[in-house]
Each structure stands twice: as structure tokens, then as C-alpha cells.
């Protein structure tokens, strides 16, 4: 605070003092109302600043975007889990081979049955190789996805990330302006905003968890894929590993596209809408690009986000009763 403003405040204080001492009731009343409004503004400012700190807290995830999207969990953590599942599979495997061998030796009388059993045996042996190679397979996945991600992220993903930040900033701006006018004016926007940011955080962290989970299950996936009855489960597990590993590619592609294209959108569309659409597009992009879900699932999600607003009404009732 510089000297000028200090003197100014001193003057104001003296003025107020003099008025307060000398004035009648009416002037006091006016000052009272003004201070009342000022205090209300302080209360609203408290709300806004608290909201801002939480939003800032969540927004820090944007800094970690490049890191979270380009890296995969280290193999050492996954391999221990993989070996655990391989250990579980091993006795079954031995059992399967022994039974097959016995079947070939003794039971199969028809040529056809024997051929089938033989092909099964070759399958088993291929599976043996695959299972023992499964850490390598996962490693290859990781290398491809990381290299692709690194190559793509340098093509302008930062512009996309700043667009997402801009969307968040736009929502916050609306929230604080409406809240400063009335206490409950923009609370629902805040609820939507934090839900979005929290959802974004959880999505990114959940990917790492899911990669570890399905990575550990990869030997099991190969094992199940070998037997006809459980073939589609093995395929499903394998697809899940694949999808969760390559999800960041879709995200980064979305970021790059947002960054490249956002400038070419005509300027008469308000920027805020473009940024919000970009945010939702980013959230929905894995479903859109990798075909995990479809447009409808994406919209159901959107609807659910919007539905978080009415839930805060319950809190209003509690607050009102405590007045």
C-alpha cells in the first residue's frame, strides 16, 4: 500500500468518524445499510474465494496432463502381479496338457478326435509361449502407445490443454459474477464445474489403475483365449488391455484436434461455448474414437452431470431450516 492510498483511507476514516459523531439517525441508517450490504458482499466474497481455491486445486490436474497421458505405469509393478497369475495358471496348464496327452494316448479312437486333440495341444504350446511372453507383449504395447503419444503431443496438444483451462475459467467467471449478486445465484454452476473437473481427474487416474489391472490379467487373457468355450472372455480381456493402454492416444488426438481447429471456427460464435464444447469433446473422445461407447452413452453422461444440480436442493432445505 503506497502513501497516497494510506492518506486517502485516513481521510475516509476521519470523514466517517466526523459524520458518525455528528450525524442524526438517518445518516447512520444509510451507513448501516451500506455496511450491511458490504458485509454481505464480504460473505459472498468468502464463498467465491473458497470456491476459487477448490477450483484451483482441481485445475492443477491440467499441469499433469502431458505426464499422465504420455506415461504408463512402470513394468516392474505389473510383472509381479503377472507372475502371480502365471503361478495360478500353471497347475491348470499342466493338468490340461496331461489330460490331453492321456486322451491322445488312450481314449481317442477316431482320427478326427485325435486331430482335434493334436491341434489343441499345439494351441496349448503356442499359449505357453504367449503367456511367458506376456510381459513383453505389454511392454510392446506400452512402447507403441508412449511413442505415439509423445509424437502426437508435440503437435500442439498444449493449445488443446489451454482450451480446456479456458473452459474451466469461463465457468468460474460466470459462477463468481452470479454469486456476487446473490448468494445462491451461481452455486449450481459451481457444482457442475467441480463435478466436471473431479470427473476429469478421476478419469485420468482410473486409466492408470485399469492399465495395471488388465495388464496383470494379460496372462489369464491369453490362457482363456486358448480354450474355445472361454475364447470370447479372453478376447474381451485382451481388448480391455488394449483400449485402456491406447486411450491416451484418443485423448491426445482430441487435444491436438482442438488446438488445431479451434482457430478456424468463425469468430461470431462466443468463445465460451467453443471451449465448453471442446471440454465435453475431450471427455467423450475415447468413446467416439475408440468406439468404447457411442454418442448416446456420452449424452447420458452429460445428462448425469447436469443432474447434479438438483441434488443441491436438499442442502438448501437444511440451510433454510437452520436460519
Amino acid at each position, binding site marked *: 500500500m503506497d502513501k497516497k492510498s494510506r492518506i486517502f483511507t485516513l481521510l475516509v476514516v476521519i470523514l466517517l468518524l466526523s459524520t458518525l459523531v455528528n450525524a442524526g439517525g438517518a445518516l447512520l441508517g444509510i451507513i448501516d445499510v451500506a455496511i450491511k450490504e458490504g458485509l454481505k458482499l464480504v460473505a459472498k466474497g468468502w464463498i467465491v474465494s473458497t470456491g476459487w481455491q477448490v477450483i484451483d486445486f482441481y485445475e492443477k490436474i491440467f499441469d499433469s496432463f502431458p505426464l499422465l497421458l504420455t506415461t504408463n505405469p512402470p513394468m516392474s509393478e505389473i510383472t509381479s502381479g503377472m507372475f502371480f497369475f502365471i503361478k495360478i495358471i500353471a497347475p491348470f496348464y499342466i493338468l490340461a496338457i496331461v489330460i490331453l496327452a492321456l486322451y491322445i494316448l488312450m481314449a481317442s479312437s477316431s482320427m478326427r478326435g485325435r486331430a482335434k486333440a493334436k491341434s489343441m495341444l499345439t494351441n496349448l504350446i503356442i499359449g505357453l509361449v504367449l503367456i511367458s511372453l506376456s510381459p513383453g507383449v505389454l511392454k510392446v504395447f506400452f512402447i507403441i502407445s508412449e511413442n505415439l503419444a509423445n509424437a502426437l503431443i508435440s503437435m500442439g496438444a498444449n493449445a488443446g490443454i489451454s482450451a480446456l483451462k479456458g473452459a474451466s475459467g469461463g465457468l468460474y467467471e460466470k459462477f463468481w459474477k452470479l454469486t456476487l449478486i446473490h448468494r445462491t445465484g451461481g452455486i449450481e454452476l459451481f457444482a457442475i464445474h467441480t463435478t466436471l473437473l473431479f470427473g476429469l481427474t478421476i478419469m485420468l487416474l482410473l486409466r492408470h489403475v485399469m492399465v495395471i489391472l488388465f495388464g496383470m490379467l494379460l496372462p489369464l487373457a491369453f490362457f482363456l483365449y486358448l480354450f474355445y468355450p472361454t475364447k470370447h472372455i479372453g478376447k474381451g480381456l485382451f481388448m480391455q488391455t488394449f483400449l485402456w493402454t491406447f486411450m491416451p492416444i484418443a485423448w491426445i488426438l482430441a487435444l491436438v484436434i482442438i488446438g488445431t481447429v479451434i482457430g478456424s471456427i468463425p469468430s461470431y460464435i462466443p468463445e465460451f461455448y467453443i471451449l465448453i464444447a471442446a471440454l465435453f469433446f475431450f471427455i467423450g473422445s475415447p468413446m467416439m474414437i475408440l468406439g468404447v461407447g457411442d454418442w448416446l452413452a456420452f449424452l447420458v453422461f452429460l445428462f448425469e452431470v447436469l443432474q447434479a444440480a*438438483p441434488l443441491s*436442493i436438499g442442502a*438448501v*432445505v437444511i440451510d*433454510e431450516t437452520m*436460519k
Partner: protein
Amino acid sequence: MQREDSQRMWNKILAIFIILILLSSSVSASIIDTIWGLITKPLKGVLKSWEHVLKNPKHFIKHWGKHFAHEELEEKGERIRTFAYVFLLGLFTWTVTKDISENINRYILINPDPLHEGVKSTVYSFIHLLIPFYVLALVSLGAYILFLSTSPKGRSRAKSMVSKLIIGMILVTISPHLLNFFFTLSENVTKNILTQGEEEVTDAVGTYTGVMWKSWFLTVGAIYGVNALGEIVTETVTHATGFSISQIKKHHYSWGTRGMKGYWPVKVLGTLDKILSKLKVEAEPGRTIPMLMLSITLFIGVYGILAFRYLMVMFFTLLFPFTIFFLCFDPTKKLGGTLLEQLLLWTFVQEFYAIILVAIGTGMIMLPEDLLGYGFGIWPLTISFFDLAACFTLMLGPIILFMLLRKLLPPL
């Protein structure tokens, strides 16, 4: 079972009360007087005031006007805005219920008129748009026959495609009339259903409007009910104890220092009054948002779906020439099939609506009387679950039938 039990319990409690009162009469007559006074005095007072009001409505308005004029400004604002809310919501409910009971048949029966000037001209402009596509299709087919098809089988297939295309051309030119015929058919079927079950339809619409009104009553109850309750309790306490609340109120802030210090009824009444005065401010429209949402959902559920159906039928009506073209050209047959299916289904939603209305009416008529009362809310502000279910069936039924029939239709 449970119901019976509760009834039995109530009977028991009543019996106990009666016995108690009878017994007490033998002990002391004065106690009865007191109890009787407790019950009747406030009631009498309320009745008297109402009698007065009913006799002189002018005086009532004057009195309340005076009262209103003397109120604090904030309280005035509170009163105005709650009243405006209730009034506007009531107005909305009234207009919607009136409109729907008058016009439901019209809303269900309406279909776009393909022979209307604007629609017709648009369809014909689409037909013009189709000409290059026809030329393209014919040329490509011709080229196929001339150059590519070596087998007689493929050639015959191509030839049949050409004939199909030509049939399609004829159909495209008369497509508005074709659609008009189809719409008339569907309308007649719907009209038949509606006239056959006229009573049921009236009943179903009555259920719908009833729920709308009940929702409004609940809103009124939620806003003014607490106030009314507070009023009644205040009056009861006043009459019972002989202390006027307003008298207490005067000493309210200083009952610790003035002469009434330590006198327990004053303390109790002071506390009570504090609570009651808190209760009075609670006329918040914000807490009636669930009821408001119910009303709006009901409104959107019927009007929105009917309007959406109309618009979708219009959409596929405009696309009808394209539908025929796609259907008659083999590579795009699947697309045309989907378009045609959509047109049929969206048109049939009116039949579904009529069927659902009749079904709801039948169900409500067939329902045993004693089941109708089950619902939520405090009597008399209850919404029956059956009525609510009927409303939601009215909203979702046509859509469910739509989805169901889509699965049942043979793939084209």
C-alpha cells in the same frame, strides 16, 4: 394385513381416550370443562372469525388491506412474491389442464398435411433435387450392364434394379398423395379407438389433470401450510393459557428483567413464540421445487412428446421422396428401410397414444376403490401412487411401445 393392524390400533387408542374421558368425568367435572375448552375455544374463535368474514366480505378485504398496509415492507414483499408464485403456478396449472381436457383428441390426431401448399412445394423441390441422383443411378446401372456384368445372373439383377428405379420414379411423383392416404388411414384408426373408449379417455385425462392440480395443492400446502399450522398452534395456546402471544411479545426481549421474571409460562411461551416466529418466515418457494418439477415434467411429458412426434413425422414426410429413392436403389436399400420404418413408427405413435389413454382409463376404472387412496403426502394433500403411475405411463408408454415395435418389425 398391516392396514388392518393400524386400524385396530387406532380403534384401541380411541377407545382408551373415550374411557379416560368418561372416567375423568366421574372424578372432576372441571377438568372436562378445561379439556373441552381447550378443544373448542380456538375452534370457536376461528369459526367466528370466518363467519364474520363470510358475512362481510367487504369488511374482510378492508381489514386485510389495512393489515397489509401496516405490515413491515419486507414482510409485504414476502407475501407478494409467495402469492405471485402460487397464483402464477395455479394459472399455469389451470390453463394446461383446461387446454388438455379440451384439445387432447386434436393434439393426438394431428398429422402434417402433405398437400399443404408449403409442404408440397418443399417436397417437390426435393424431387427436383433427386433428379441428378436418379440420372447418376441409371447411368451407373447402365454402365454396369454394358461393361461389367458378364454373368447373365448379374445382368438380370441389374435389369430388375432398373425396373425398380422406374417404379420408384412413379411413386416419387405421387408421394404427397401416397402419404396423405396413409395419414388419413392412421388418423381414422386412432379416431376409432378414441371414440370407442371415450369414457376411458376422459377418465385418463381426468387422472392427469388431477395430478397436476394435486401438485399445485401440495405447493400451496408447502408454502402456506406451515404458516397455517403456526397460526392454529398460536391460537390454541393463547386460548388454553389465557396469555396472549402479543402480550408476551411485548416483554419478549426483556422477560429476564421485567416483572414477569421467573414465571414459567412466560418462559415457555417466550420460547414457543421464538420457535413459532421462526416458523412463520418459512414460506419459501424454493422448497417447492420438487412439486414444480413434477408439474413441469408432466407438462413436458405430454406436450413435448406430442409436439416432438409431430415434428418427427414432418421431418420424415419431407424426406419421403428420398426414402422411396433409397428403397428402390439396391445399394442404399438399408438406409431407405430405416427411413421408412421411422416414418411408420412415428406416425403410429398417435395410435399408441390412443391405446395408452384407453388402457389407463380402463385401469383406473377397474381399480378397487380402496387402493386408489395409497399415496404420499399428508391428507388431504396426497397424490395417489396409481395416479402418478398413470401419468408416467402416459408419458413413457408411447415411447416404450415405439421401441418395442421397432424390435418387432421385420428387418428391411
